[in-house]
């Protein structure tokens, strides 16, 4: 990932590799604003090369044992540590089986070599408009666990990402885990990404529906179209209240393409993105409701 700085080298910093979470939190508590936490480093190193970050201290949490784990408990769901790479998640059978949208998003994130280093938590902490990770997570109502020396907070991913490059994380806090609730039975989800002829997506979406005949919950979440992930709540309502889902799909998709704040940028124009939102939404809802 890059923007446009001409540097080869990184700014100077001191590297720390704590062995425990406590040690990491203590370091962070000491250096605060001067420090940055690194897991895979994919985002951080790139940001440093671009001179968009110049921390004096880098705290590498890669070797902290509890952050390297993925746990799943029925009913409670998934708990993904901050040092778990996307490749590890890609090979996780539970994710493949139960969290379709998340699995698809991971499979489509960056490229397989980057995925060997990049982490899901890191992906979310980048808070860049086009990253894939947050989109399915928001559709699953996932929460980020944030820790400081004397506090633990659980924040919905949708609130955690406040805007581009802005997250709800204090200087002394580490985003340690992601909790993804166990999808109820009769839950279906999917993730779609449009990035033909582009490294960054021009539009992504995750759809998650609970209840196949009469939906009880509907999540339609979009990425890469706005300054942060957005939900199409009116479109969701159309699906929730519809008597005939087949009929409602196009209506919901049209609504989604209208209700969201959409940006124009170097990758795509607003009207094309709105069009893509409609196409993606129809596609996603059709595959969820298996219209045939």
């Amino acid at each position, binding site marked *: 990932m890059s923007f446009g700085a001409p540097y080869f080298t990184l700014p100077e910093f001191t590297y720390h590799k704590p062995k425990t979470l406590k040690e990491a939190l203590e370091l962070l508590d000491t250096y605060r604003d001067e420090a940055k936490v690194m897991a895979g480093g994919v985002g951080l190193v790139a940001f440093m090369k*671009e001179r968009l970050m110049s921390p004096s201290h880098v705290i590498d949490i890669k070797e902290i044992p509890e952050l390297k784990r993925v746990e799943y408990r029925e009913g409670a769901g998934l708990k993904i540590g901050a040092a778990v790479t996307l490749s590890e998640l890609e090979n996780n059978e539970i994710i493949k089986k139960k969290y379709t949208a998340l699995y698809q998003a991971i499979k489509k994130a960056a490229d397989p070599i980057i995925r060997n280093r990049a982490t899901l938590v890191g992906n979310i902490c980048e808070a860049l408009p086009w990253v894939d990770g947050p989109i399915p997570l928001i559709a699953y109502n996932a929460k980020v666990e944030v820790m400081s020396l004397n506090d633990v907070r659980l924040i919905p991913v949708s609130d955690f990402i406040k805007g581009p490059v802005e997250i709800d*994380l204090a200087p002394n806090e580490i985003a340690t885990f992601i909790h993804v609730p166990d999808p109820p039975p009769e839950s279906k989800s999917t993730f779609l990404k449009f990035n033909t002829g582009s490294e960054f997506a021009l539009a992504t979406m995750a759809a998650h529906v609970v209840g196949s005949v009469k939906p009880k919950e509907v999540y339609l979440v979009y990425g890469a179209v706005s300054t942060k992930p957005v939900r199409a709540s009116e479109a969701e309502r159309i699906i929730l209240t519809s008597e005939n889902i087949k009929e409602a799909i196009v209506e919901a998709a049209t609504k989604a393409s209208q209700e969201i704040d959409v940006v124009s940028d*170097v990758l795509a124009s607003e009207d094309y993105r709105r069009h893509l939102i409609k196409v993606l939404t129809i596609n996603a809802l059709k595959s969820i409701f298996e219209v045939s």
Partner: protein
Amino acid sequence: MKFEGKVVISSEINKVWDFISDPEKIIQCIPGIQEYSVGEGKRVTAKIKVSIGFIKGVFHASSKVLEEDSTKYTAKLSLTGSGAGSGFNGIVDIKLNRMDGSTELIWAADVNVSGPLGSLAKPILEGYVRKLVEQLFDCVRQKLA
């Protein structure tokens, strides 16, 4: 990108004018200023730390007085700068109006953010520049209060 504003400073007009027309003074009001130097014709060069969200970049900026009229209390400055492979440039107009015991400072800025950062993150950067200019004049108000 154009924007404007005004602040009322509870200080008399000459005092305000002296403050804002003295680079050594007004520069103290630039948020994130790290280093600066004042050259010929009040040309200021400065290193400014820019914080947007968790991004903290350093911009090298300079400003120059294009027009200055101490009888009418008007000034026009140009700004240019670059950092992280992108740039910005702009014009700031300032006018002071004498009010009853205080001074009204009216400003208008026209700022462009250019380059790859600007194109990917225009709304963010524009919001940031707006905030920065607002902070600057608010600081003037506070310093002279």
